[in-house]
Every structure is written in C-alpha cells, then in structure tokens.
C-alpha cells in the first residue's frame, strides 16, 4: 500500500513463567511478588488435580449413560485455575462452558456441574456464587453480558464509592470469529470498563484448527481493534497465568479499563463426548501437546524445586478422588425435577395460558 507517516504503533508480547520443561524463567522474586509461595502453588496444584479428577469421572459417567454430552477441559486446567484463584467472591465470573477449574474454585459444587451436563437446570442454580453466569452455549454471546455486568459494576462503584468489583469473561479461540466478541471489546474499551477478557485458545473449535479460524498470527491482536491492552501467555503455565491474570484484574480494578489475555493451551480431549477428534487431527499433534500439559509441568516443578514431596502430591490426588466420588454419589441420588418445573421458572408469575398448558401436561385435559 501507499506509505505515509506512522500514526500509531502496536505490539503483542508473549509471556511465560514456567516453560515446557518445568523451568522457571526469570527470578524467584517474581513469584513472591505475585504471592506465589509454596502454599499458594500447592493450592493451584490442588485445583488443577481436582478438576482433572472430576473431568475424567464425568467422562466415565457419560460413557456409562449416566451423564449427557460433556465438554472436557482436559489439558486446560491451568488458566481456569488461575482465574478461579484470583477473582474475589464479589467479582463476577462469566464462563463459556469449559471452565470447570474456575467454577470449582468459585465454589460451584461438583454435583451442580454434573446436574447441568446431566440435563437438569438446577445445575445452574449455583449456591456459592449467585451472581456468576451459567454456561453460555451460543458461542461468544457471553462477552456482551460481561460488558453489561462491568457497566453495572462501574456505575455502582461511582455511586457507592466502594472498591471496584470486576468482571472476567472467558471465551474460546472459535469465539474470536463471532461479531459479539468484537462488539464487546469495542464497548468495553469505549467505557473503560472493569472487565478482563480471557481467550482460552485451545487450538480447536470442534474440528476447525486455529489456523483456519483466523489469518491473524495471534488472537491477542484482536484487542488492538479496540485499543485494549493485550498479551499472549502460555496457558499451560499456571504460575504465569496466575501472575498475568492478577495484573490484568488489578488494572481493571484500578480503573485502567479492560484487559485481554490470550492463553495458549490445548484441548487434549475430543470437543465433547459427542465428538471424535480422530477424524480431523493427528495422533502426533496430540502426543506433542501432552508434553506441554499443565499438571505434569507443575508437579515436576514442585518436586524439582523441593517445594513438595511425591507423597504430598499423592495425598492431594487421593483427597480429590474422594471428593469427586462423594459429589457423584450426591448427583446420582438426586431426584429428577417434577415436569411442572418447566412452567415454574419461565416468568416470575405464571400467566394464565401456561397454567392451562400445565394442567394439560398433568393430564387434567387433553390437547392443551
């Protein structure tokens, strides 16, 4: 194209703390500054292990006909864990549908998550984080809800003078092709909202590889469209994720407007239990991805750095297994909802025509 004088320059950086070989990059002090002492790191480890234990149990339940279609988060535990650990209870988390790690740390019960994938709306009636949004199935649509939530939070802080709450929203690499994603970025930047966007780039949108989703070299650069500060990180490096999410939330909370993080990870599982990834991706690619997965990486670091012994790690695993089993028992023992529930929650007050239809459902009259 014709050239001219540069009016604006941009760049996208990549950051990492614990690399693929479980080597710590930079200085230990950085960890301390971020509050990542051994206890904290073990807590992160625990969340990741719990997530994976739950995840494999969920798949087992699906395979044996006791759960519906389920979207595994195998390999993606790190970024969700970092998010879950950094958000305050009063903040709002807006998920897509693969954010099990974050949900667990938010206090969502495992039996709730199972109910949801088991085809029961009560699974979205979160007891512990009543303001968090339920899964958003229409891809990227949740990004706009996050804008509204962050707007409400900003207004509230202005009115009350209380500390700024923040909203954090997650979407996938596929979601970055949807209009809603960009509309959200643009509006969030315009109003400088307390909102953190996290793109969980797991390299696949069902069968579509990242390379066919967008020509852009990074997904982080999509934030440049709206002039939102953005960074690309290793999403399987839970320590780096924790630091970056921490900083982003701090910026958003401090009135510096929205932030965007592209977390590079990998979907080690099929898209869902209804999918067969063998149709479209090579075994070789999958094996390479396993080399970079977050839990092995962190356990190796914990052992190498002598922050924890194998038996500590084993204990964590055992406790997680027990917790998952207990939740599964509760799930399996849950009575189904009465079928009248499909009328009960539609409107606050059930209109007359629905009362009639409900009567018909109960067999009180035919047709409707």
């Amino acid at each position, binding site marked *: 194209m014709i050239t001219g004088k540069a009016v604006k320059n941009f760049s996208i950086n990549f950051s990492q703390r614990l690399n693929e070989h479980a080597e710590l990059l930079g200085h230990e002090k950085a960890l301390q500054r971020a509050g990542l002492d051994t206890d904290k790191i073990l807590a992160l480890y625990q969340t990741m292990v719990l997530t994976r234990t739950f995840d494999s149990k969920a798949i087992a339940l699906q395979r044996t006909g006791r759960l519906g279609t389920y979207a595994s988060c195998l390999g993606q535990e790190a970024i969700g864990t970092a998010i879950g650990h950094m958000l305050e209870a009063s903040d709002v988390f807006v998920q897509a549908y693969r954010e099990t790690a974050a949900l667990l740390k938010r206090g969502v019960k495992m039996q709730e998550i199972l109910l949801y994938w088991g085809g029961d*709306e009560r699974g979205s009636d979160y007891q512990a984080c009543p303001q968090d949004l339920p899964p958003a199935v229409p891809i990227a649509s949740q990004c*706009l809800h996050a804008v509204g939530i962050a707007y409400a939070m900003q207004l509230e802080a202005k009115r009350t003078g209380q500390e700024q709450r923040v909203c954090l929203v997650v979407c996938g690499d596929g979601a970055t092709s949807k209009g809603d994603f960009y509309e959200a970025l643009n509006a969030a930047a315009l109003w400088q909202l307390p909102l953190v966007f996290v793109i969980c780039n797991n390299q696949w949108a069902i069968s579509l590889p990242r390379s066919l989703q967008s020509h852009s070299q990074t997904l982080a650069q999509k934030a440049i469209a709206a002039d939102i500060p953005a960074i690309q990180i290793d999403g399987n490096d839970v320590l780096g994720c924790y630091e970056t999410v921490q900083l982003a939330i701090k910026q958003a909370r401090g009135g510096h407007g929205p932030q965007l993080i592209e977390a590079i990870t990998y979907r080690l599982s099929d898209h869902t239990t209804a999918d067969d990834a063998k149709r479209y991706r090579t075994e070789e690619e999958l094996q390479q991805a396993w080399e970079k997965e977050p839990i092995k990486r962190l356990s190796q670091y914990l052992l190498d750095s002598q922050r924890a012994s194998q038996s500590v790690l084993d204990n964590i695993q055992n406790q997680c297994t027990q917790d998952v089993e207990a939740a599964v028992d509760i799930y399996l023992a849950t009575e189904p909802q009465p079928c009248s529930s499909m009328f009960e929650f539609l409107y606050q007050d059930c209109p007359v025509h629905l009362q009639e239809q409900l009567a018909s459902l109960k067999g009180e009259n035919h047709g409707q």
Partner: protein
Amino acid sequence: MANNITLLEAVNQALDYEMAEDQDVIVLGEDVGLNGGVFRATDGLQKKHGADRVIDTPLAESLIAGMSIGMATQGLKPVAEIQFMGFIFAACDQFICHAARMRNRTRGRLSCPMVLRAPYGGGIHAPEHHSESTEAIFAHIPGIRVVIPSSPGRAYGLLLAAIRDPDPVLFLEPKRIYRLQTETVTNNGEALPLDTIFTLREGDDVTLISWGAMLYETQKAAEVLAEKNIFCEVLDLATIKPIDTKTLLNSVEKTGRCVIVQEAAKTCSVSSEIAAILAEKALTSLLAPVMRVTGYDTIMPLFTLEHHYMPSVERIVATVLDVMEF
C-alpha cells in the same frame, strides 16, 4: 400532572417518571442521549438523569441487547431502544437465547428485567427496513412478553408496567400514530396490566380485534359500519403475549363473528394465533368464518406503494360486510 399528550410524549413521560422513581432504570440505545432518539422518545432524559443512565451506545444491536442482559443480572433495569424494528434481528440471538431464558435456566437464581423498545410499522414514508411489523416472531418465543400500546394513555401505563415487570418485555411502539392524536394522561405512575385486552367499543354484531396503529383504521371502520347498523365490538389486544383469551372468547361468544386486523404479513402471525384460539375454543359460537385483514405475505414495499400494503378502512369494512352476509 394531567396533560394532553401524544403517544410519543407518553413514552417519554413514562421513561422519565420511572427513571426518577427508580435509580436502577437505565436507558440505552443508538442516539438516545443528546439527540433524544430519532423520534425524540428519550428527549431530555440524558440531561436530566445523566449520561451514565442514558447511554448512547455504539452502533451495535447485539451489544445493546446483550449488555442489557448483563446489566439486568446485576439488578439494573435496562430499557434498551432498537432504533427501528427492522434492525432488531441482530439483537434476536441475545434476546431470544438469553434474555428469555435466564430465569428459567438458572431456576430463578438470575432474572432479566429488561425492556426492549422499538418503533415499528409502516405508513411514515420511511426507507427500506424502517416499516416492519414482526411482532409474531417474538410472540412465538417462550419467556418474553410482547406489548403494543395504541393510545397515549395505554402507552404510558403499559410502558411503566413493562419496566416494572420482572421479566423481559418487548415493547413495540406504533410509530405511525406517535403524533397522530393527543389524550389527557395523568403522570401519576400508574401502570396498566400486562395481560388484558382493552375493549374500546362495545357491540353485538361482530368482534373486531386489532393492536397498535391499525386500531385507528379499525375504529374508523366500526364507525362506518355503525352507520350501516352493524355494531362492532372493538378490542385492543395490547398484550400480544400473553393473549387475554378470556376477554376475546367472551366477546366472540357474544357476537359470533370475528375479524382480525393487523398490519403484519398474514402467515404464522398474531392473527393466525387469534383465529386458531377461536377455531379451538369458540367453534360452536362462530356464525361466520374468522376473517383476517392483514398485510400481504410480501415484503413491505418502498413507500410509494406502502398504502396498498397496509389494511385500509375500506378493506376492513368490506370484510366485515362479507362476514355479516355469510
């Protein structure tokens, strides 16, 4: 506090009243701020209630609906404007897949007390996409309410009710009659029910049911017919969803005849639903076929022909005469 106002002014007044009453009410949309909306429905609101609460959004309908949902889950009561109903489709995904479902899918944990306002209908010589009437699409969707006022007083009372309703409401404003007539409306914050047909005229011979701007022609037709000694009962449907079936059935049981008048296209429309209700629940009362005087199943033409598209007094009268002679 009583004043003689247009339907447009009634909308403005209801918004102003409720914004003053309830800090959580937020108005948002394209050009709703300084410009006061392209029809001036939000005129003066930003100045009075602040730019935080009367938000000029970027040009993005999915954003407008989607951010309203987020706000509503935080306890705000967004009243969002879609500039013309013809541009509502980009907001459909958010409104239908999320607003309508938030309460149900969380078993009541979260809800979505939002209003989506849009001027709708033809007859103002507007460009393409500025004259649509697609209320039927939304009436089909469970979880939302659809409300259409047809007079200043009903616009005032129904809009207040819509804002206060704990669930999502689509509030469609018949722009052709925005400024057509004035009425004395008391600005007292009194809402009207969201499930009631308004009987505008009583009569024994035939029930005419309509909503929005078409009630203008429908009432004129009733006058013409009265001169011919045919006495029409004229009903204003007002709440498109849910439909007040009881008042409808009572009227048709009395008259034995029904003509439905709507501006929208005919197939799978609100008029279809009304006729179906009658075919199901009033068959033995019916003395004549249920006739529908509607827009054609064609695209609303550009404005040189739009008056041919919309039901006229003549078409209504002729149809009623057919029905009476059946």
